[in-house]
């Protein structure tokens, strides 16, 4: 079981002081958060990708490359990489380069992006979101798996005899997750390829994602990648902890009340009852997180959102210290419950081992 954090990279004023960090401060804060994640024993850091204010992470592999140089164990990932508006050729190159620099500690999560105006900035149209995700990803897979690619598709300039460089590390492309909030087509895509499926999970009631994930599991089995309970599932979560649960509620409430996404809407109490958001003691977070497995089955990756709504860096780092305390407990509990036939999330090492096995068996 992998645990980590994912960040949107929003620049949001701290509602208790009215002050917003500068872009430089926010970017450096994201790096500090990633380094802290490794320090406290988390497995994964995933950054969002955005091309509009108030977000800073437009260039994920630049940031992840920098973090790679300053960490040694952390898996560097995305939440999400825009498969619709990025050129799949550039994704293939950027992430292969990152793989080499990070010694394989790289995977990535495909997403479509839900901001209409962003698409035309990159020559696309949001109404083509699903076809773009499908065609671009089909090309990306070939670029990583075939040394020389001829390509003729609907959305991109044709390629003749193109080789994407550098080739993936050890000839093994990074593992890919597909993130979706409400599209069965994307769950179908993940199932077809035997890739991972990540349900953002936060902000909405679990019933919604239950349907999407059970669909993905069913189709994963349909396409012959294993049993439904062997499909590779990731979930988001959102937490704020203090030793005393009332302190957590009191401290987080002003951030909750004005937060992007749900601010000025339901009360903190209503929202925590309906969604995975957990505000309270470390024990309460452990208990709530364990319910995710009951809802969705044994899963492979849990990412927490801890740095949004204008929370200051110091507070976020304190949250990571607390996550560092609860993750070993969660890891132990969830590993004990997981049947032996349910796999871990693929890593570069496991994918290399599998590729050697396949090569050995065909010799």
């Amino acid at each position, binding site marked *: 079981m992998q645990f980590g954090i994912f960040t949107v990279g929003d620049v949001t004023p701290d509602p208790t002081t009215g002050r917003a960090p500068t872009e430089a401060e926010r970017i450096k804060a994201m790096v500090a958060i990633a380094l802290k994640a490794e320090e406290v024993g988390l497995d994964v850091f995933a950054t969002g990708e955005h091309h509009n204010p108030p977000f800073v992470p437009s260039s994920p592999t630049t940031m992840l490359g920098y973090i790679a140089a300053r960490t040694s164990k952390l898996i560097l990932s995305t939440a999400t990489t825009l498969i619709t508006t990025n050129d799949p050729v550039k994704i293939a190159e950027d992430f292969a380069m990152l793989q080499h620099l990070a010694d394989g500690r790289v995977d990535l999560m495909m997403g479509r992006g839900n901001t209409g105006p962003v698409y035309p900035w990159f020559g696309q149209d949001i109404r083509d979101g*699903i*076809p773009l995700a*499908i*065609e671009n990803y*089909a090309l990306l897979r070939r670029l990583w798996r075939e040394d020389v690619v001829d390509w003729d598709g609907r959305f991109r300039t044709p390629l003749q005899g193109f080789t994407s460089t550098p080739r993936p590390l050890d000839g093994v492309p990074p593992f890919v997750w597909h993130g979706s909030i409400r599209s*069965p*087509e994307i769950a*179908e*895509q993940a*199932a*077809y390829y035997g890739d991972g499926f990540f349900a953002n999970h936060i*902000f*909405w*009631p679990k019933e*919604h994602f239950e*349907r999407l994930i059970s*669909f993905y599991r069913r*189709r994963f089995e349909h*396409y012959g990648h294993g049993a439904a309970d062997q499909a590779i599932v990731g979930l988001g979560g959102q937490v704020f902890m203090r030793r005393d649960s009332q302190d957590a509620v009191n401290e987080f409430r002003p951030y909750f009340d004005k937060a992007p*996404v*749900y601010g*000025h*809407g*339901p009360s903190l109490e*209503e*929202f925590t009852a*309906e969604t995975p958001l957990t505000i309270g003691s470390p024990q309460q977070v452990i208990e709530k997180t364990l319910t995710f497995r009951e809802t969705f089955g044994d899963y492979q990756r849990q990412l927490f959102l801890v740095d949004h709504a204008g929370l200051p860096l110091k507070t976020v780092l304190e949250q990571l210290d607390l996550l560092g305390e609860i993750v070993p407990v969660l890891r132990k509990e969830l590993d004990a419950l997981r049947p032996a036939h349910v796999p871990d999330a693929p890593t570069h090492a496991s994918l290399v081992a599998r590729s050697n096995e396949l090569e050995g068996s065909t010799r």
Partner: protein
Amino acid sequence: MRIAVVTAGLTQPSSTRLLGDRLAAAVRDISAGRATDAEVTTVDLRDHAHDLTNHLLTGFGSAALRDVIDAVVGADAVIAVTPTFSASYSGLFKMFFDVLEDRALAGKPVLIAATGGTERHSLVLEYALRPLFAYLQAVVVPTGVYAATSDWGAGAGGLHERISRAAGELVTLLGAGTATPPPDPYDDPTPFEQLLSS
């Protein structure tokens, strides 16, 4: 057969709710003795105003609101009643239909009705409600029922007659069995090869 009444009346008692009740009673009377009796669920949107706002802000409804939406979407027919505000349906009324999933009411028999202070607003049914439900691909009965304050007083025969006529049309439509549930992309997915080649 299940009938859902959606009423956007704000006061208590409310003439909008009263009109909804009268329409539901007429449908029940007319359908009495047929294959299945009408089972009526009434949704007072006033009770869900905060949840509707939260739904617009967060993209999901509370458990209570989800139950109400399920009851309306799952009904065999809907009676939708709104007060006339600023020459149209009320904002609260529209909010409810704004948070339904696409095609949630497709093919559904709907009876439209409205209340207002004066008869001069009666065409609100034809230029506001009917196009809304046409857009939602519902099947709206030909007779809409508008009740002005004066309709509740002496000589309410005209209102009675309109209620009976509209209720009769709704029951007839129900007998025709026009509602077809939209295809479920989870139960009947498009195979990936097809997505890939399209």
